[in-house]
């Protein structure tokens, strides 16, 4: 018998082993592909879970009957009537406080309507159901709600409404909105990008256009790659120690005559976030500058331009779309980051719009975190709504980045 038979089978046994080998191969190929199925399923479950939470039946009760305040149905009242109800039924101190925040006459009807519900009638949510349950088990839920809460009303509710986007924070989930959180996020990201983009681009220019391969520059390059991998919460600790504590006179604004805050301000958060995205911006800007063809530089040098003239007039304009794309990606990273903001001291409850870099703030992911960790299910519902807002924001940012990137790719 051929001693090599096992290694080089022939004839019938070869065909059999080949068949076996192909079967193994196709099974494994299926397994490899199923990794994607799991990824797709997870993504689907995540998105579904969020949407599922943001809509659905809610059983609620009026603490005070609307008929105590008005004879007409609440929905038919106009702005003036609502205003009158508030004026007569709120204590004068509470009314004055509201009036000081924003003149009552200038508020819209829907705001006043919400105020009547929130302050006077006082909604009390008993239980909420998810969207799937509400659709599939609608009849059961109606029976269940009628048994458990005979007084309560059952209503299919979308927790994500235009009002949700425009009302400030409230301690009641039914009346809470993300206005202050969105404004806080925008302020913070604005400061972060103003801080990080010029410095990051400058660093990238230095590393690609000026630096020769000496020790310092190698250390800088390695260091930037490492900074990109530092956990975000460590940046939060850095921000707490440096921006919040050491630079308190600057970040609290007391240097500029602002007195009512400590260092836990939008400015501190923005600078911390800027530090966090700096390595990201540098790495992306380096890629963009690297993509500018060398012939452009040589042409500029050839007609006698200095190094900076070459960079300013030829390299930067051509690298700009790439740098912008990188910065947009950095912005979307900054908008979603939560941990550093918690450490730097985002306020958990704040209902006044931030009015400058020295005000206290909250941010969209902070609100999501707060609401998710509450025990009551109505807070989970508004957390889900806030997540949808956040994801929509990120989606539009990334779409812009992709569009920009495609335009650049077409050029060369």
């Amino acid at each position, binding site marked *: 018998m051929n001693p090599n038979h096992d290694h080089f089978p022939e004839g019938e046994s070869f065909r059999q082993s080949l068949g076996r080998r192909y079967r*193994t191969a196709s099974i494994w190929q299926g397994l490899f592909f199923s990794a994607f199925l799991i*990824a797709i399923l997870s993504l689907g479950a995540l998105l579904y879970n969020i949407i599922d939470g943001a809509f659905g039946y809610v059983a609620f009760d009026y603490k005070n009957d609307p008929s105590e305040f008005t004879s007409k149905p609440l929905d038919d009242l106009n702005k003036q009537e609502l205003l009158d109800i508030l004026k007569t039924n709120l204590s004068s101190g509470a009314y004055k406080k509201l009036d000081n925040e924003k003149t009552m006459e200038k508020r819209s009807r829907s705001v006043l309507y919400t105020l009547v519900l929130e302050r006077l009638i006082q909604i009390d949510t008993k239980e909420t159901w998810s969207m799937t349950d509400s659709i599939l088990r609608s009849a059961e839920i109606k029976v269940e709600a009628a048994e458990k809460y005979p007084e309560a009303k059952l209503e299919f509710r979308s927790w994500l409404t235009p009002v949700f986007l425009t009302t400030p924070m409230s301690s009641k989930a039914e009346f809470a909105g993300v206005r202050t959180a969105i404004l806080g996020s925008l302020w913070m990201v604005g400061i972060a990008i103003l801080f990080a983009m010029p410095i990051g681009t400058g660093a990238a220019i230095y590393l690609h256009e000026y630096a020769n391969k000496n020790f310092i520059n190698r250390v800088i390059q390695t260091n930037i790659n490492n900074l990109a991998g*530092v956990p975000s*919460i460590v940046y939060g600790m850095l921000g707490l120690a440096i921006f919040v504590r050491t630079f308190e006179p600057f970040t609290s604004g007391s240097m500029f005559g602002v007195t009512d805050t400590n260092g836990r301000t939008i400015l501190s958060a923005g600078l911390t976030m800027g530090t966090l995205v700096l390595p990201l911006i540098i790495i992306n800007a380096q890629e963009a500058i690297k993509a500018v063809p060398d012939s452009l530089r040589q042409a500029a040098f050839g007609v006698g331009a200095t190094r900076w003239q070459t960079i300013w007039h030829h390299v930067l304009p051509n690298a700009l779309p790439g740098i912008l794309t990188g910065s947009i990606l950095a912005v979307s990273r900054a908008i979603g980051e939560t941990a550093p903001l918690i450490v730097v001291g985002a306020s958990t409850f704040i209902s006044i719009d931030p009015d400058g870099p020295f005000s206290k703030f909250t941010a969209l992911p902070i609100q999501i*975190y707060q609401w998710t960790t509450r025990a009551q299910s109505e807070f989970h519902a508004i957390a889900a709504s806030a997540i949808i807002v956040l994801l929509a924001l990120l989606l539009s940012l990334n779409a812009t980045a992709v569009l920009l990137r495609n335009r650049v790719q077409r050029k060369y």
Partner: protein
Amino acid sequence: MKATLMENKNFRPLELKKKLRLGETMIQTLLFLAGFLSIFITLAIVYELGKEAWLFFGDPDVTFAKFFGTTEWSPGIGKFGIWPLVTSTLTTSFIAICVSLPLGLAAALFLSEYASPKARSTLKPILEILAGIPTVVYGYFALLFMTPLLQRIFGEGVQVYNMASAGIVMGIMILPLISSMSEDALSAVPRALREGAYAMGATKFETSIQVVLPAALSGIGAALIIGISRAVGETMIVAVAAGAGPNFTFNPFQAAETMTGHIARISGGDLSYNTIDYTSLFAIALMLFLVTLVLNLISQGIINRFRQRYE
């Protein structure tokens, strides 16, 4: 009158010596400073964390034996055993890697060895979307989807806050990172190796597993290490879903606070400076920073060596 070139008063012979241009030098200095700022940031992290950690370890109550020898962590009342925070960090990270390494590797093998360019262009964005979702959203997902799911499968033993759901969801979060880094490593394997295997009659699967995968092993190792580093430093998922309060356990169905989760919870309140709580957080953060730094450096070292081998 005919003036020669030399008689022209404005004529200067062309100077080829490098001129000192003040503006240019200033700009170069500014740009260098921008680049150097990154070094400064690293130094600032080490200095600030080190300073407070030094204060923490300098406290007469905190001894080395207590720190590494006891299993209760509550600095406010003089309990300084770091282990409960470490074990939960290890547990969640281990679960995350158990989920993300096989899945990420399988996805990478499929993308680099099997997928047509068209399939790749539709499958890759799915992973990119997963990578772009903020971690606090994963936290919501872990608490309100994964935990009820685990409770339905494993019954009452699963606590509302537990390390398993946080770890699994963290694995899903890290999956894109591991798969994209592994795919880079797999595609860097020279074509000649694959062609050689095919010429010997190997099937595609045999080529991928027995030839390409071993050749890319160091790059995959680098991906694994980066994955571990990301899992150790991840905060929001564990802060939301893994539980509040240190707990010395390896049981994944119990609640236990990780190092990052602890920092997030304690610093979330109005923390006053110069207390033992404040300095202890910096000690934990310093440990986190050093661990992730070492992991990142190792990973980068592997990648650099690997790249040189094939270029």
